[in-house]
C-alpha cells in the first residue's frame, strides 16, 4: 500500500512538473535568425516598414553579365522603435539554396538598405560557418544581429494606395569581375627562437568575407554592409615559419561587382555589392607586429601543439580590395579541422605558448610562442 501511494505521489509530482514545461514549449515564439533596427539615412529608427529575408542561390561558376534571382524566405514589419526580428525559415525552405558543403548566404533587405550574413546548414539548423564542421562538435543556431540603414530618404518605398499588393523580388547581376583578392586567413607568431610554426588551409575551410555596399558603385563610395560565407575548394599549404616573426597567411578569393535590382511595391531599388564569387586559392605571406598576450603554458622541448576550432581574429581590413573600392573589407576564419595552426619546439629548452584572450587550449584568437 505504501509503495503504491509513493508511486502515485511521484507520478503526480512528475506530471505537475512536466506540464508547465510542455506549455512553455508551445508558447515559445519562432527563433529569430536575424534581428536589428531599421534606420533612415540619418540613423533615426524607421517604424512600420517591411523588412525581408532573402537567400542567395548556391553560385560558384558565374560570368560577367549573368543574373541570379534571390528567394524571399520570410518578411516582417519594423516596430515603433524600428526593431525587426526575422524568423528562422524551415530547413526545407533553405536546403535547396545551400552549397554542397551546406554554406548558405542571406540578405536582409528593406528598400535599398541591406545587411548580409552567411552560415552553414547542418542537420536543419543554420550555424556559424566558421565553426568546426567536424562531427560531434557542439554548434548552436546562428542569429545575425545587424541594423539596416537606408542610404537616402527616397530609398524606402511605401504603398501608393491602401491595399496595394506587396511583391518583393530581387535580382543580382554580375556587372564586373574584380579578379582574385588576397585575404588573411590565419596568423602564427614566434617571439623567440627554436619554434617552428605553420598554418594549413584545406578543402572545406570556411571564411566569413566582407561585402562592400554602394548606391552608385563608383570608386570611393563603398562601405562594408555585411559578410558572406565561403569555403575553400582546394588545399593550400603555407611554408613553415621560424624565429622571431609574426606571419599572416593569405589566400585568394575572387570578388565581383554585383548590381542589385529589388522591387518593393511598385518601386525598383538599385544598389551595388562587392562580394566574393568563388575561391581562387594561392598563397601569400605578410609580416606584422606581435599581438599582445597574457595567458601562457610551458612548452617543453620536443613537444607539439595544434589548435583548431577557435574563432580567429577578425581582420577588419583583411580583404585587399581597396584598389577597386577605395576600402578594404573584413575577413574571419575559424581554426577548424580544415584550418589549423601548429607549433613545434625544435630545441631542448622549454619555451612558452601564450594566448591573448585565454590559454592556448581555450578560446583565444592568437597564439604567441615566447621565451
Amino acid at each position, binding site marked *: 500500500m505504501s509503495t503504491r501511494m509513493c*508511486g502515485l505521489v*511521484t507520478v503526480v509530482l512528475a506530471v505537475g512538473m512536466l506540464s508547465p514545461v510542455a506549455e512553455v514549449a508551445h508558447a515559445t515564439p519562432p527563433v529569430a535568425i536575424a534581428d536589428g533596427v531599421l534606420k533612415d539615412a540619418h540613423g533615426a529608427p524607421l517604424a512600420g516598414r517591411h523588412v525581408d529575408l532573402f537567400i542567395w542561390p548556391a553560385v560558384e561558376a558565374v560570368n560577367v553579365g549573368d543574373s541570379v534571382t534571390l528567394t524571399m524566405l520570410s518578411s516582417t514589419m519594423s516596430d515603433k522603435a524600428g526593431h525587426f526580428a526575422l524568423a528562422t525559415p524551415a530547413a526545407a525552405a533553405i536546403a535547396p539554396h545551400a552549397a554542397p558543403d551546406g554554406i548558405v548566404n542571406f540578405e536582409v533587405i528593406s528598400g535599398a538598405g541591406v545587411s548580409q550574413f552567411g552560415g552553414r546548414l547542418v542537420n536543419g539548423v543554420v550555424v556559424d560557418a566558421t565553426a568546426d564542421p567536424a562531427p560531434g562538435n557542439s554548434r548552436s543556431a546562428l542569429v545575425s544581429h545587424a541594423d539596416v540603414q537606408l542610404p537616402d530618404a527616397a530609398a524606402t518605398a511605401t504603398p501608393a494606395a491602401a491595399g496595394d499588393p506587396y511583391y518583393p523580388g530581387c535580382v543580382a547581376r554580375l556587372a564586373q569581375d574584380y579578379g582574385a583578392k588576397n585575404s588573411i586567413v590565419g596568423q602564427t607568431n614566434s617571439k623567440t627562437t627554436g619554434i*617552428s610554426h605553420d598554418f594549413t588551409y584545406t578543402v572545406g575551410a570556411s571564411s566569413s568575407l566582407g561585402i562592400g555596399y554602394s548606391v552608385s558603385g563608383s570608386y570611393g563610395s563603398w562601405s562594408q554592409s555585411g559578410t558572406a560565407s565561403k569555403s575553400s575548394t582546394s588545399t593550400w599549404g603555407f611554408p613553415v615559419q621560424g624565429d622571431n616573426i609574426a606571419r599572416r597567411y593569405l589566400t585568394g578569393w575572387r570578388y565581383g561587382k554585383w548590381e542589385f535590382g529589388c522591387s518593393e511595391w511598385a518601386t525598383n531599388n538599385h544598389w551595388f555589392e562587392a562580394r566574393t564569387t568563388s575561391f581562387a586559392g594561392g598563397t601569400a605571406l605578410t609580416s606584422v607586429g606581435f599581438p599582445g598576450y*597574457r595567458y601562457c603554458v*610551458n612548452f*617543453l622541448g620536443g613537444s*607539439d601543439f595544434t589548435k583548431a576550432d577557435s574563432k580567429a581574429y577578425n581582420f577588419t581590413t583583411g580583404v585587399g580590395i581597396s584598389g577597386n573600392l577605395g576600402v578594404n573589407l573584413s575577413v574571419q576564419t575559424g581554426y577548424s579541422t580544415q584550418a589549423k595552426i601548429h607549433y613545434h619546439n625544435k630545441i631542448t629548452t622549454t619555451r612558452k605558448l601564450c594566448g591573448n584572450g585565454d*590559454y592556448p*587550449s581555450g578560446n583565444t584568437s592568437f597564439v604567441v610562442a615566447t621565451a
Partner: protein
Amino acid sequence: MLTRTGSVVVLCLALGSCSGTADDGPLGKPSSPGGVCVPADKNGVVTDGFLALRNGGSSSVRLRSVKLVKPKGVRLEGSYVMPIRENTLVGLQPGTVDGSRTALADAVLPARADRNLLTQLRLTDKAVAGTTGGLEVRYVVGHHTYRWVSRIDVRLAPPGGSCGS
C-alpha cells in the same frame, strides 16, 4: 519493487539530480579541439598540465573524477589540481610534477577561480606511442552533476622518441 524503482527514476528526472550529466555547467563548454604531443620519460610517464579549469559560476564546484576519452596504449595514473602562478600553466612534462598539487577527487574550485588541471599518464608499452582523444572531468554543483570535456588529443611519444614535425 518495480514501482519503487520507477518512483526513484521519475523523482530523479524531476529533480535532475540523481543521474545523468550536463555539459553546460559553470566550468563551461567543451574546449577547442586540437592536439599536443610530448616524449615520455624513461619510465613512460608524462604529466599533462596543458589545461586550465575555470569556474565561471557564482557557487563553488566540487570536482569528482577524470576519465580519458578513447585511450590507446596509455592509462591514467592520477589526477590533480594546482594553483596557477603568474598566468602560466605547467604544460606537458615528462615524469611527475610535484609542488602544491592536490588530488582532484573532492577538490573544491571556488566561484570565479581557476586551477591548473594535471593528469599523470603512463604508456602501457614504453616502446610504443600512446594516445587519448581528450578527457572528461565530472563535477558537482549542489545536486547537479556536470561534465567538462577537453577535446585536446594527447599523444605520448616513446622515451627518447620524437613528436616529429
